[in-house]
């Protein structure tokens, strides 16, 4: 093995071990920031020693031993932790044997909830989660989110300081608090997924790779919290969305809409995994949660071999439930589209007209664009033209504006 081979092997070990290592250390020193630094120190030691000595047989245990030794050294020197010194030092020195599997899982779960603590900004939660749980480097996170590396480094430093200053306990919340905090955790994972998903393939491979990072985090969380239906719901949603990756970008990098996608390019393995996760949600009795409902909608599309086989009646029903939960006008808009597909454009238009004055949709060009489409299908060309023109004036995307202007022109051609 050359030195660079060893470096890549160490990176691989890091990817696998980082979260468990940091989680275990955080429980011992009760400080996520300090735990992360100790783990990083061990990584540096590995980078120095392994190229010569070779990768040890149990690299995870090696890293843990080195980190713990550093922790003991540090605690002896560090006044900040003086009050805990005796107890902590004693605990560390006597915790030589490897922890039980259950213990590691509890630690990991605590790490998840601490990294996604509401005391941190959303950006900080995302950066810290990817760093300590995903094993991503600061550079990788920066590239994925298209921000300078120094910004990410700062976010992580600040996040760790906030956790320490506010003395946020390293724990999984209990009882009523759990649901709210779990929602925050799921939000972070889904945000990471969407950051990768909304970027089209091509230029920067890091962004699509974020989808895989999010899926991995989701699958880990599902393993840690097997009884929480919404965790499986989110995993199902991500698996099914990810199954379409290859089909949603055309030959020149242009996005291909769902109904136009080549379904032969959908990843059947991911679809099956998604459907299985969704079944699991149902067994747990959580099919009415927001992620489960979104996953169920995605599953309707995944089950249809051809676009025309899509069960729009079911989709419209699922959107109705989702709308009750979220009261989001965007969900209502989607529901209107599903209704029009299921029962015709007049039904869709009826719902759409109820949300036309929604202030949050004031600048949303899809609203007039969809309304124009319904009107067009109903033969009300002049009204449709006005809507397409309105939509064209609202969109900031040149390509989309051109399409909308074409549609407006087509309405005029039909009437005159």
């Amino acid at each position, binding site marked *: 093995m050359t030195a660079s081979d060893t470096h*890549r*092997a160490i*990176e*691989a*070990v890091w*990817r*696998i071990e980082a979260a468990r290592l940091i989680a275990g250390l955080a429980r011992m020193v009760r400080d996520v920031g300090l735990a992360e630094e100790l783990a990083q120190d061990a990584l540096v030691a590995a980078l120095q020693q392994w190229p010569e000595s070779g990768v040890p047989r149990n690299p995870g245990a090696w890293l843990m031993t080195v980190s713990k030794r550093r922790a003991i050294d540090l605690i002896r020197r560090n006044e900040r932790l003086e009050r805990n010194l005796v107890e902590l030092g004693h605990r560390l020195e006597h915790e030589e044997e490897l922890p039980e599997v259950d213990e590691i*899982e509890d630690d990991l779960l605590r790490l998840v909830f601490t990294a996604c603590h509401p005391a941190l900004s959303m950006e900080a939660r995302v950066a810290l989660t990817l760093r300590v749980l995903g094993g991503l480097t600061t550079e990788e996170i920066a590239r994925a989110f298209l921000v300078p590396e120094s910004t990410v480094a700062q976010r992580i430093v600040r996040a760790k300081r906030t956790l320490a200053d506010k003395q946020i306990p390293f724990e999984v919340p209990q009882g009523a608090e759990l649901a709210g905090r779990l929602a925050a955790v799921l939000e972070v994972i889904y945000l990471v997924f969407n950051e990768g998903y909304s970027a089209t*393939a091509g230029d920067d491979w890091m962004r*699509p*790779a974020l989808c*895989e990072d999010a*899926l*991995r*985090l*989701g*699958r*880990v969380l599902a*393993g*840690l919290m097997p009884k929480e239906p919404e965790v499986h719901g989110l995993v199902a949603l991500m698996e099914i*969305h990810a199954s*379409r*990756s*290859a*089909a*949603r*970008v*055309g*030959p*020149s*990098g242009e996005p*291909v*809409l*769902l*109904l*136009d996608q*080549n379904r032969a*390019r959908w*990843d059947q*393995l*991911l679809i099956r*995994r998604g459907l299985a996760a969704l079944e699991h949600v149902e067994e747990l009795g959580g099919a009415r949660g927001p992620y489960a409902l979104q996953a169920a*909608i*995605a599953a309707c*599309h995944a089950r249809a071999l051809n676009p025309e086989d899509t069960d729009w009646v079911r989709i419209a029903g699922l959107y109705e439930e989702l709308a009750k939960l979220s009261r989001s006008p*965007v969900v209502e*808009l*989607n529901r209107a*589209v599903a209704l029009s597909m299921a029962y015709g454009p007049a039904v869709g238009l009826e719902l759409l007209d109820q949300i036309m004055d929604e202030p949050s949709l004031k600048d949303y060009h*899809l609203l007039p*664009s*969809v309304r124009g*489409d319904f009107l067009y299908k109903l033969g009300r060309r002049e009204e449709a033209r006005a809507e397409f023109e309105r939509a064209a004036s609202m969109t900031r995307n040149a390509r*989309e504006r051109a*399409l*909308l202007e*074409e*549609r407006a022109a087509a309405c005029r051609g039909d009437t005159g």
Partner: protein
Amino acid sequence: MKFMIVGKANAETEAGVLPSQELVDNMHAYNESLAKAGVLLAAEGLYPSSQGAQIAYSGGKATVIDGPFAEAKELIAGFWLIQVKSREEAIEWALRLPVPPGHEGVGLDVWRVFDPSDVPDDSMPAEEREREEALRERLSVDQPDD
């Protein structure tokens, strides 16, 4: 990226000898660790080749050859499909696979699995692409859902 770790067959797996309880337990723990790390997509064990068949081609004709096949070391006994960040990570996972004591020679292959998103879909004929363009004019009908 996806990798397939392929477990090679040997005389024992081909004879259908069941592995020891210890190996089964270790394998179970290994699969669990892959799943807990969020990297496991699928894993299956294969029956001996006597239950399968080979298809051979000659002069444009296909011939079915019933198992078992001659070279046990060229056969496979099972596979794991994993999704990881790098070839090195796939190898690191493969290295952690429990191998029965006394095993000699190649026991595992690590293959990178082709991903359809590695190449764009240009299988769409021009006519269909036009149709697609026309459909797209309906504009973002289900974009939020995609």
